[in-house]
C-alpha cells in the first residue's frame, strides 16, 4: 500500500528518537569507558565515578533509555494512528 505523508513523518520521528537515544547510549558506554581513568578522580556517593558508572551508572541509563523508547513510541503510534488493537 502507498504510505501517506503522515506515515513518512512517523518513521522520521522514530529515526530521530532512535538517533538521540543511541547517542546517549554511545556516550554512556564508549565515551565514559574511554575516560574512565579520568572520571575516577571525581568521587560520587563514595565511589570513584569511573568505576561507579561502569558498574552501575551506565546500566541505570540503559534501563532508562529502553523505558523511554517504549513509552515514547507507544504514544507516537496512537498519535499517528498506527497503533494496534487493544488487547482484550
Amino acid at each position, binding site marked *: 500500500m502507498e504510505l501517506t505523508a503522515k506515515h513518512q513523518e512517523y518513521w522520521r520521528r522514530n529515526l530521530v528518537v532512535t538517533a538521540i537515544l543511541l547517542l546517549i547510549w554511545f556516550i554512556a558506554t564508549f565515551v565514559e569507558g574511554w575516560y574512565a581513568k579520568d572520571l575516577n578522580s571525581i568521587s560520587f556517593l563514595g565511589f570513584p565515578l569511573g568505576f561507579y558508572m561502569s558498574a552501575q551508572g551506565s546500566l541505570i541509563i540503559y534501563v532508562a533509555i529502553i523505558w523511554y523508547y517504549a513509552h515514547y513510541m507507544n504514544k507516537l503510534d496512537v498519535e499517528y494512528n498506527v497503533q494496534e488493537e487493544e488487547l*482484550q
Partner: protein
Amino acid sequence: MSQAFSHVTFKNQLKKYYSAYTGGFIAFLLILAAAEQMGLTRKYIGYAFLIATIGLYAMIGVMSRTVEVAEYYVAGRRVPAFFNGMATGADWMSAASFIGMAGTLYLAGFDGLAFVMGWTGGYVLVALFLAPYLRKFGHFTIPYFLGERYGGNIIRSIGIFAAILCSFVYVVAQIYGVGIITSRFTGLEFHVGVFVGLGGILVCSFLGGMRAVTWTQVAQYVILIIAYLTPVVWLGVKHTGIPVPQFAYGATLQKVTELEKKLTADPKELEVRKIFKDKADAANAALKDPSKAYAQNKATIEKKVADLKASNAPADQVAAAEKALATYPKDVDAAKAQWNKDKGLAARAAPPIHHADPFPGKDETARDLARRNFLGIVFCMMFGTAALPHILMRYYTTPNVKEARQSVFWSLFFIFLLYFTAPCLAVLAKFEVYSNLVGSAFAQLPAWAAAWRVVDPTLLNISDINGDGIVQLAEIVLGGDIIVLATPEIAGLPYVVSGLVAAGGLAAALSTADGLLLTIANALSHDLYYKMIDPHASTARRVSVSKALLLVVALIAAYTASLKPGNILFLVGAAFSLAASSFFPVLVLGVFWKRANKWGAIAGMSAGLGVCFYYMTVTYPFLRDMFGVTKPIAEYMWFGMNPISAGVFGLPIGMLTTIIVSMLTPEPSKEVQDLVEHVRYPHLRGDISTEAA
C-alpha cells in the same frame, strides 16, 4: 488460539499462579531450613533441591505439552511483556553470569566490568533496532526473516549455519555448567550430572517447545534471582548496615583500596612475592640450557646430602636433603616441565591489583592497549547480545509490537537486578578476604575458608610459602567461581542457602540451554527441513521433526560437554563475536535500509563471518594449533586486539560489504520494499499480513 481467549484474564491468572509459586518456593526454603536445624544432612539438602526444582520444571513441561505449531514455536504469541521479560532474563543469564561473573570481577577488578556493561547495554540495541520490527514481522525464527527479507535459500542457509554455530558452542558450555553444579552439590559423578541435567532440559523443550520453555524460564528466573540476592543482601547488612548494599558499598570499596595499598607494601607480602619471583627467575635461567642446569642442580643436591652425612648432621636435616634428592625430576624433560610451571609463578609475584583502577599497565602504551581491549570487549558483547538468535526469538512471543517494546524494558530490568549486584558482591567478598582471611593463622582460618580449601583446592588453595604460620594474600590462589558459591558461608548463613545458590546456578544453566537447544532445533526443522527440503510437510510432521532433532542435538551437545573441552570460556566469548559479525548488519540494514538486497546480504554475512573467524584462527592459540598457523601472533594482530574481540573487525566489514555490494546490484523488488514498510509500522490499515498462524 480459541475465540474466547482473553488476554486480560490470562495475565491476571499468570500473576496469581506465579505469586502462589513464589510463595510456595519460599515456604519450601523455610521448611528445609527448619529440617536442617533438626539435623537434615547436607547431602540430602542437595538432593531435595535437585529433585524439587527439576521435578517442578518437568511438571511445567508436561502441563504445557503441545503439538500445535504456533504454540510449539512461539508459545502461541500471548506471553505478556512482564513475563516475557522474566523468561528472557533467565534465557539470557547463563551459568557463566550466575556463578562466574562476580568471580571475574573479583579477579579482574575494573576490567571485568566490560562484561557487565556489554551484557546489559546490548539490550538498548535490541530495543531500538530489532525487537519491535521482528515482532511485527511475526514469524518463528531469525533465518526465516532473512529468507523473506532478502529472498532465496543461500541467505537462509548462511543464517541457519550462523545460528547453529553460535548456539551450539554456547549450549555446550551450559551443559558443562549443569554437570559441574550437580556433581558438586549431590556428589554424583560429573558425567551422571550432565545427563541428569540433560533430562531436566529435555522434559521441557521436548514436550512443549517454546511454550513449555517460556513458562519454565519464568519459574527459573524467580529461583535464580532469589538465590543470587539473598546471600548478598545478608552480607551487605553485615558490612554496610542497609539491605540494599548495591547503593552503599562505596565505603567498602574505599576500605578495600586502603587494604590494597597496605598489602602492596607489607614486608611479609613482599617476602612471599620475592620467593615466587626467585623461583620463576631460576626456572627462566634453567630453561636457557636445560640439560646443563639439570646436571648442575642434581650435583648440588647430591653434594649437600654427602656433606650432611659426612659432617654427622642431625637426622632430620639429612632426611630432608634425601627427600629433595628423591623428588628431583628423573630426567631433563620432567625437569623442563617443572620449570615451565615455575615460570608461571611470576604472576603470583605481582602486587594485588587495584580494584577500582581501570586499564592497569606498566607504561602509557600498555595502558592504552588495555583500554582499547576493554572497549573492544564491550563492543562485541553488546552487538553480540543484539544478534544472538535465542534472545531475538523471545520477542516473537509477545502479543503485539507494543508489548514487545515494553518487554525489552522488563528483560533488561530483570537482568539488571543481577548484573548491578555482581560488582557489589565482588567488592564485599574482597573485603572479607583482605581483612579476615589475610592475616589469620593457618591453624585458625575462617570457617568458610577452612571448609572450601578441603572441598575443592582448585577453588581455594592456601599454602604457607614463607613458613610464618600466617596467611599472606600472595599465598592464596582463588578460583573465581568460589565467590558466588561460598558467599552464603562467608555471610554465616545456614547450608540451605548454599543449596539455594546451587539451585539458582542450575536454573540459570538449564534455562539458557533450553532456549539455545530450541533455537538450533527450530533452525533445522523449520528453516532447513520445512522451508528447503519438504515444503508440503504437515504441521504435525514439522513439530515431530523438530522434537526428534532436539533430542539429537541435545545428545551431541551433552556428549561434547562430557569430554570436558578446555577453552569453553573463550568459546562463549567467540559466540558473541561471531553473532555480531554475521547477524547484526543484515538484520538492522534489513529494516532500516530498503535498498539492502539479496547479494549485499549474502556478501555481507559471509565477509563478516569470514573476517571474524580468520582473525580468531590466526590469533587464538587453540585455533592456531588446529589450523597449523606458525608465524608469531604479533604479526597477525590488528591494533593489538585480543581474539575474543574479533567482532570489532567482523561487524564493520560485514556492514560495509552489505552496503557496497547492494549498491552495485539491482534494488530489491517492490514486494520486498513493501515488506520493509510493513515491519516499520505496528499497524497499517489495509496492509498485508506476514504473521504465521
